[in-house]
């Protein structure tokens, strides 16, 4: 037995010795590799001995591998770690000796093993394989790493180089950055909000106080910072704070109504939302978002106190709503009404402010009689009505429904109404333009029918006038006929010239057009003692039909001349201007010191057959002018007061010089 024991212990001792030697050898190899003293390592493995050469020239690289912050390892074809650097060992918390010689896949966490095998296979087949995965440390902690596996070229047998980058810090940083970014964004949004947004530290004071809070409570940021919210705002909670706090901790949020006191002592009811936020250091703060519902509360209260079914309409309606009390004279004739209640939309719909309790006749003296009659009838008979009508005093049209509230004795009428002014105006404009178009069509048909007979008459009169046998007396009559013919021609031409002329527009310099006209008008201006003042700026040409432009200027000029008595003045100005869509344009302004235009006429001057020149007017000049102006994409404006002269201005879109050359001057 003793022999057996001593034999066994001797064997163990030998084995121990062998292992020690092996360890020393391994340690020596590692030291040698680390210091760069060896050029080759021989590793015994399943496939026999493998020799890994480390050329002296690679010393620098080895030093680098040891010094670098990434974990690095060399793997054999079978996935066994042949070499690894200190960094990887540190990362895993496993001594170098226990890494080298082990399959690399054992370093990887269980879940990532499959992924690693795939990567390894990819790398072996020659592809560079890269991926994020998790390593398993000695204590079983998982370490996020970025792995890059690559075949080492020129090595035989095949070996792979593995580089691992520890992502733990990076991941943490990314998360922190994202959290900070989210907080920052949130904070910016909060600053802009109309809601009061307050951030305070649990067990501490206010750390953030936005504009909304300033507006709502009247405390400035300086005054609020560091104060305890409940104390500053004298908060009245709906239940004990301890309960709210408990809920807040449990769910992370709490919502409810709070009562606060503003700086000036007003009581404010807010709909509050509290949220726990944690920062990077784990400090807990409360983010409180408070919306003012004082007004809503007041309305709710008012609604509860009065006739609920009518008041339900309040506030939510876009339509105007009011309840009036109709006031009758002793003969039961409606003479006025008083506003009992109005909804928020009322003001916008009527333009009347603070009407509650006031009489309609005091608010709008000119309010039409029919309104009083209609509401009076509703109050007396109880029959609901619906109608559209105009309120001139308010300069609006309304679509109205009215019905009686309560019994016959109440004399209260509820009115629901809508401002339909825009719709009415659009309708009227449509009717007007349709009327104008049909009048225009008729006028041009008539004028055409007149032209042929005029031609004959003109020819016949000319023949008579040039007849050698024509007596001087007959000649004078015929000359009158020619003049009258010219007048008729002028009228038809004024209506039609723009239909008839060559419609192809050309580039026109307005200064030249106007000057050529002025030569023509000069004698007449002189004869009437009218002073003319010109001011031309450097302007671009316009693309227009020459004759039409001349007609526009001529019509405006003749009107000005007709409006002037002796010694009047006409100003003609040409200037640069901006037209529709912000494009460049040229503006022609013709102003006179004449009799001016009264406001009633001013509305109608562009309508056909409207004239103030009873004998000589055709009522077509400005109508035609506007048609031409619109055809050219131009705009015409007029400003005038009786006795103060009139200013007409036409703005044409202009053609910049560069474009002008391309368009050419032909046509």
């Amino acid at each position, binding site marked *: 037995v003793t022999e057996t024991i001593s034999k066994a212990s001797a064997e163990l001792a030998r084995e121990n010795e062998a292992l020690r030697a092996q360890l020393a050898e391994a340690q020596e190899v590692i030291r040698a590799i680390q210091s760069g003293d060896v050029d080759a390592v021989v590793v015994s493995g399943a496939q026999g001995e493998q020799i890994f050469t480390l050329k002296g020239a690679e010393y620098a690289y080895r030093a680098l591998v040891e010094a670098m912050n990434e974990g690095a390892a060399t793997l054999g074809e079978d996935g066994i770690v042949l070499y690894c650097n200190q960094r990887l060992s540190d990362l895993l918390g496993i001594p170098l000796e226990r890494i080298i010689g082990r399959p690399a896949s054992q370093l990887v966490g269980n879940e990532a093993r499959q992924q690693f095998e795939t990567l390894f296979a990819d790398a072996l087949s020659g592809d560079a394989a890269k991926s994020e995965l998790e390593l398993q440390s000695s204590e079983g902690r998982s370490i996020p790493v970025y792995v890059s596996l690559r075949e080492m070229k020129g090595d035989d047998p095949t070996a792979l180089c593995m580089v691992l980058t520890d992502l733990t810090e990076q991941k943490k940083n990314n998360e922190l950055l994202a959290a900070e970014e989210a907080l920052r964004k949130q904070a910016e949004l909060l600053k802009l909000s109309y809601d009061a947004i307050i951030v305070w530290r649990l067990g501490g004071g206010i750390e953030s106080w936005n504009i909304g809070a300033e507006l709502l409570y009247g405390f400035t940021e300086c005054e609020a910072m560091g104060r305890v919210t409940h104390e500053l705002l004298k908060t009245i909670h709906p239940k004990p704070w301890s309960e709210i706090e408990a809920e807040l901790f449990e769910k992370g949020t709490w919502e409810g109504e709070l009562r606060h006191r503003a700086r000036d002592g007003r009581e404010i009811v807010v709909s509050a939302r509290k949220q726990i936020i944690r920062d990077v250091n784990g400090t807990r703060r409360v983010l409180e978002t408070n919306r003012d519902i004082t007004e809503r509360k007041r309305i709710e209260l008012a609604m509860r106190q009065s006739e609920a079914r009518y008041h339900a309409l309040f506030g939510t309606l876009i339509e105007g709503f009011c309840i009036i009390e109709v006031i009758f004279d002793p003969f039961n004739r409606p003479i006025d009404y008083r506003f009992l209640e109005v909804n928020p939309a009322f003001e916008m719909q009527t333009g009347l402010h603070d009407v509650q309790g006031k009489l309609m006749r005091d608010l709008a003296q000119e309010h039409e009689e029919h309104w009083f009659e209609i509401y009076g009838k509703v109050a007396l008979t109880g029959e609901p009505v619906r109608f559209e009508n105009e309120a001139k005093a308010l300069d609006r049209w309304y679509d109205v429904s009215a019905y009686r509230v309560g019994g016959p004795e109440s004399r209260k009428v509820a009115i629901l109404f809508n401002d339909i002014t825009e719709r009415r105006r659009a309708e009227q404009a449509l009717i007007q333009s349709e009327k104008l178009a049909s009048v225009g069509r008729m006028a*041009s048909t008539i004028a055409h029918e007149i032209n*042929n007979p005029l*031609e004959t008459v003109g020819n*016949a009169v*000319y023949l008579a006038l040039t007849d050698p046998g024509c007596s001087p007396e007959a000649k004078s009559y015929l000359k009158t006929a020619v003049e009258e*013919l010219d007048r008729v*021609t002028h009228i038809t031409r004024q209506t039609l010239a723009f239909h008839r002329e060559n419609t192809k527009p050309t580039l026109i310099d307005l200064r030249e057009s106007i000057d050529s006209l002025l030569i023509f008008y000069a004698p007449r201006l002189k004869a009437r003692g009218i002073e003319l003042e010109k001011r031309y700026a450097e302007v671009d040409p316009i693309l227009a039909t020459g004759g039409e432009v001349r007609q526009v200027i001529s019509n405006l000029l003749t009107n000005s001349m007709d409006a002037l008595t002796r010694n009047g003045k006409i100003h003609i100005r040409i200037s640069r201007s901006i037209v529709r869509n912000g494009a460049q344009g040229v503006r022609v302004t013709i102003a006179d010191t004449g009799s001016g235009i009264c406001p009633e006429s001013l509305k109608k001057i562009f309508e056909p057959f409207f004239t103030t020149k009873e004998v000589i007017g055709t009522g077509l000049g400005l109508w035609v002018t506007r048609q031409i102006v619109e055809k050219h994409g131009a705009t015409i404006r007029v400003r005038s007061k009786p006795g103060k002269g009139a200013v007409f201005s036409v703005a044409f879109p202009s053609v910049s010089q560069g474009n002008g050359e391309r368009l050419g001057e032909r046509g």
Partner: protein
Amino acid sequence: MKTAMKARILVVDDEPSIADTLAIIFQRAGYVATAVYSGEEALPFIAAHQPSLVVADVIMPGLDGIALARKIRTIYPTCQVLLFSGNAETQDLLQAAQQEGYSFEVLAKPVPPPQMLAKVASLLGQDPSSIF
């Protein structure tokens, strides 16, 4: 004006009163002028008498003034054409002709006779046949 050089003018208008009076006005001014009342009548006359100028109304039943003018341009290129019209529809016809490469001058009715004579004189003064 030399008698031997008298220019011949043809007036075409479906309204005889216009065609006739205008022809007389031209005659008094020293031209040889004839009036016809349709585009269809005008063509054989032009073939027979080779006028220097045709003054034609635009809107006429049958062959209208612009169609007539286009025929004249093609068949008798030396013959001048002056159109006159009292109708806005003229514009459409002119535009259609223009798209096919024709352009004609159109006077608006009523044309005062002195203006008509001045126009005719200037046209005949620039007779292409005398230039080429």
